[in-house]
């Protein structure tokens, strides 16, 4: 049991004791396949922005972070309100944690509402203000519209943050915005949760009571519910209330990204396709500066307490799986795709998940020295493993249920090595066979009908003269 996790653990442990990232596997990996499309260039910000063509009236690409000077964890290119110039952005950056000034995360084509994300405002105990920040945030609202600021921390935690120079937006200074506090847990608590859960799953001797109480005590599914609920809330603001949203926690690199990316899964059909989901991960996780190197070092089996280790990305994948389970026909990818991403986030021969930000990845010259995961995954032969045979494009917003009865344990990840899935896999194959057979029959019937119709027309023509 836990073979893979052990494997990834020992691998990571060995590798993480290396002094330099450049000694890691991806730097020595030589692909045995022909690269058709270089994944490093598959999802350029410019191309992504083009998809939001209707946004171009109000939004623009900014290269203010070109040398990573304004915000070290942001990519060189970001999307900001058109009316705000780069100079203002530099000022706002000094007012936001980690220099993470508010940027566009998602543009809802249907009504032009947006999701923005940032780091917490550095108001401190004396209620510091920043005119440019207020101006920027207001610039994203259309005339007469109100917006919501979703703080992923509880009010209490947010208040405590002021003592350390952080804080939250005072409603008096942002009068058109309403602030909502949710409480998504932070890294060490999530890490403990994962360790407890994996422990519970790996012990096959637990009787029913013990298993259920351990599952409960892990709190894993509570975190899932909390994250999904917050994402639904953000999506609801956009789609139902017709209001734009700004999302942040403390740094804006963890819970913030869980919420912005899941809200997009709910709202945006494209993010439920394979390519769209890859783009989402590229945009909302890699370029948005989720510190993968720190968070995904050793998974559940780290023996020393790693301060920065946390299953933030795994929780996100789990939430996606929950939605996928509730809408099994609305995703182009299947569960295996999510499992694959989980594995590569923790241990990979590809450079995609190395480093903690774009600037680190740039310094490491990953594009030149390592292979992108997407180059490998997007080969047709690989893609077929990850394609959901039931997929049928669904242009609707999909609202998942977040009741505990609707949120089961992700067995495909957590029980994967603890029980045989042979019969389940065979049943899945059988399902695929039925679908394939259906397509074949449909095609055949269509051909035959056409044939028959042709014959009939001919007969008709025979008679007409």
């Amino acid at each position, binding site marked *: 049991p836990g073979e893979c996790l052990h494997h990834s653990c020992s691998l990571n442990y060995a590798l993480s004791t290396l002094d330099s990232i450049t000694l890691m596997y991806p730097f020595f990996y030589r692909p045995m396949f022909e690269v058709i499309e270089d994944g490093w260039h598959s999802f350029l910000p410019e191309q992504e922005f083009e998809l939001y063509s209707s946004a171009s009236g109000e939004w623009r690409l900014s290269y203010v972070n070109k040398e990573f000077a304004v915000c070290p964890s942001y990519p060189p290119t970001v999307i900001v309100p058109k009316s705000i110039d780069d100079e203002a952005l530099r000022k706002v950056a000094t007012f936001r944690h980690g220099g993470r000034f508010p940027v566009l995360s998602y543009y809802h084509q249907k009504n032009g509402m947006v999701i923005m994300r940032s780091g917490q405002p550095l108001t401190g105990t004396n209620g510091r203000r920043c005119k440019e920040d207020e101006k920027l945030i207001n610039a994203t609202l259309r005339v007469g519209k109100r917006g919501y600021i979703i703080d992923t921390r509880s009010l209490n935690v947010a208040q405590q943050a002021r003592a350390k120079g952080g804080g939250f937006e005072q409603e008096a200074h942002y009068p058109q915005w309403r602030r909502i506090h949710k409480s998504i847990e932070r890294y060490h608590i999530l890490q403990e949760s994962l360790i407890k859960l994996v422990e519970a799953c790996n012990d096959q001797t637990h009787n029913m009571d013990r298993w259920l109480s351990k599952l409960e005590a892990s709190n894993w599914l509570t975190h899932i519910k909390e994250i999904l609920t917050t994402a639904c809330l953000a999506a609801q603001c956009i789609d139902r209330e017709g209001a734009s949203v700004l999302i942040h926690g403390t740094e804006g690199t963890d819970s913030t990204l869980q919420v912005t990316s899941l809200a997009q899964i709910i709202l945006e059909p494209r993010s439920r396709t394979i390519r769209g989901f890859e783009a989402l991960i590229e945009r909302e996780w890699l370029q948005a500066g989720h510190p993968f190197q720190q968070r995904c070092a050793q998974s559940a089996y780290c023996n020393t307490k790693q301060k920065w280790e946390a299953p933030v990305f795994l929780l996100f994948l789990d939430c996606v799986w929950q939605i996928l389970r509730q809408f099994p026909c609305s995703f182009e990818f299947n569960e295996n795709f999510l499992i694959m991403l989980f594995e590569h986030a923790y241990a990979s021969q590809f450079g995609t998940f190395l480093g903690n930000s774009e600037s680190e990845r740039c310094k490491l010259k990953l594009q030149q020295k390592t292979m992108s995961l997407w180059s490998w995954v997007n080969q047709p032969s690989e893609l077929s493993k990850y394609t959901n045979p039931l997929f049928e494009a669904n242009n609707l917003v999909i609202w998942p249920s977040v009741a*505990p*009865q609707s949120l089961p344990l992700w067995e495909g990840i957590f029980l994967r090595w603890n029980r045989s899935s042979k019969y389940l896999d*065979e049943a899945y194959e059988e399902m695929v066979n039925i679908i394939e057979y259906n397509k074949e029959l*449909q095609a055949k019937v269509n051909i035959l009908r056409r044939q028959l119709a042709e014959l009939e027309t001919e007969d008709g023509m025979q008679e007409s003269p």
Partner: protein
Amino acid sequence: MEHIRTTKVEQVKLLDRFSTSNKSLTGTLYLTATHLLFIDSHQKETWILHHHIASVEKLALTTSGCPLVIQCKNFRIVHFIVPRERDCHDIYNSLLQLSKQAKYEDLYAFSYNPKQNDSERLQGWQLIDLAEEYKRMGVPNSHWELSDANREYKICETYPRELYVPWTASKPIIVGSSKFRSKGRFPVLSYYHQDKKAAICRCSQPLSGFSARCVEDEHLLQAISKANPVNRYMYVVDTRPKLNAMANRAAGKGYENEDNYSSIRFQFVGIENIHVMRSSLQKLLEVNGTKGLSVNDFYSGLESSGWLRHIKAVMDAAIFLAKAIMVENASVLVHCSDGWDRTSQVCSLGSLLLDSYYRTIKGFMVLIDKDWISFGHKFSERCGHLDGDPKEVSPVFTQFLECVWHLTEQFPQAFEFNEAFLLQIHEHIHSCQFGNFLGNCQKEREELKLKEKTYSLWPFLLEDQKKYLNPLYSSKSHRFIVLEPNTVSFNFKFWRNMYHQFDRTLHPRQSVFNIIMNMNEQNKQLEKDIKDLESKIKQRKNKQTDDILTKELLHSVHPESPTLKTSLCFKEQTLLPVNDSLRTIEGSSPADNRYSDYAEEFSKSEPAVVSLEYGVARMTC
């Protein structure tokens, strides 16, 4: 009808059970002799059979009206708000009366009329023939024979007339043993494994007290073990927790003393009694009915209810049986206290693990008829069909169905039937619409003349079997002869589709299972269509050649064939989805289904160019 005062109330609100914002639907409530019916403003109907009502509660008056909460045995919970208290009171009183009948004759089954004649009804009852089933198992044979000891229900009132016992067990032995067993339920055959020549037998607890013995009973057990030519040792499985069995000794009952019975191995498996099970389910329902339930409360409630622990205990006991037979080739005798609850669970589930026949639609009906109905599981008392002792009510059969569901989850291809089949059976053990589950034993059923006055459920299920087929079933597979389920705790999950079957918001919005089921059906239809089309094309081609010949010779007018044209149109419709309502998601448009594309594509596809293959036809124009 004398209980009905108000038959119709307008402007009634039906509250969403889990909505925290008190979402509701407004509509009209009707009360009929058999059902409560609510029709909302979208004309959606909610039917509630009076017999399904487990409890009716009138809550304190609110500003919007008088709340009426109805809990059903099929786990539907409805929360109405009736504008006028008086109407609410009338309905409340009527439902109290209508949901609790004092006499069997007042149950729905005695008035239900599916428009069948007497011979059809009788045929329905004859659909399942247990004598036939024992023959299928391979009895009678040289070791087992049909005993006529209970032909007149003289030895045991709660057993069926026809019982199979070892041929060496003479009538005095049977009579003697029956006097030493609770309610006279002496050891008899439940399942015979032909290949292993081993048997599952069942009985009730012995009246052993602290030291009593019975030579005949010891002989009968000896006879059972001797009826197995391969392994002379047999297991005696007491399905109760040891403590309970010991407590029974003080009341002159108890369990077998290994010293008195040569060649038995005694085993407790620890399934709790009906009272524990009843309160366990009650706790479970309380927890999962909570509005705004947190994950932690859900799991701690699931744990403290003990429900899944009980399910696992039943499953483990059944696996013990299957292993004894498959691995040790040993026969097993199963009992609990009276031998009609836990014993029925374990014997039937054990047989289902061993014999793939019971995993078919028909076989499952046979299994229920054999181990539950004929052996006197007290359906009427356990399901509370009549206004009786609430302490006799217990979800013993529901647990059996849940165990089967868990097996279908672990072995998705081993069962011919699907979850809907299990849910439908559960619906009808409480509906009192059919005679099968009325009464508590065969003798009582005969006295009620159920076969003359009511209908059997099975033929109706069989007629509808399309709905209940598992599309992934692989009947020919040899991998599923004996099921060996994994009972590590994490394999047991909350059965949402049972306990929340009417709470739509909690379920996946798209059901893979239904899609595959419909696709499978559609595939069969498509196969037929292809055959049809192929033969038509062939006909056409032949005709064309003929026609050309005829035309050339006779210049006769080619008869237009309207029949073919209409049939083609008709076929086009069958290509449209059978499953659009299942496939689409809440609030989605009909555009959200893949077959409409095909249909459109086809209707547009007037052949643009006549292909060269039909050059003959072309030349004529």
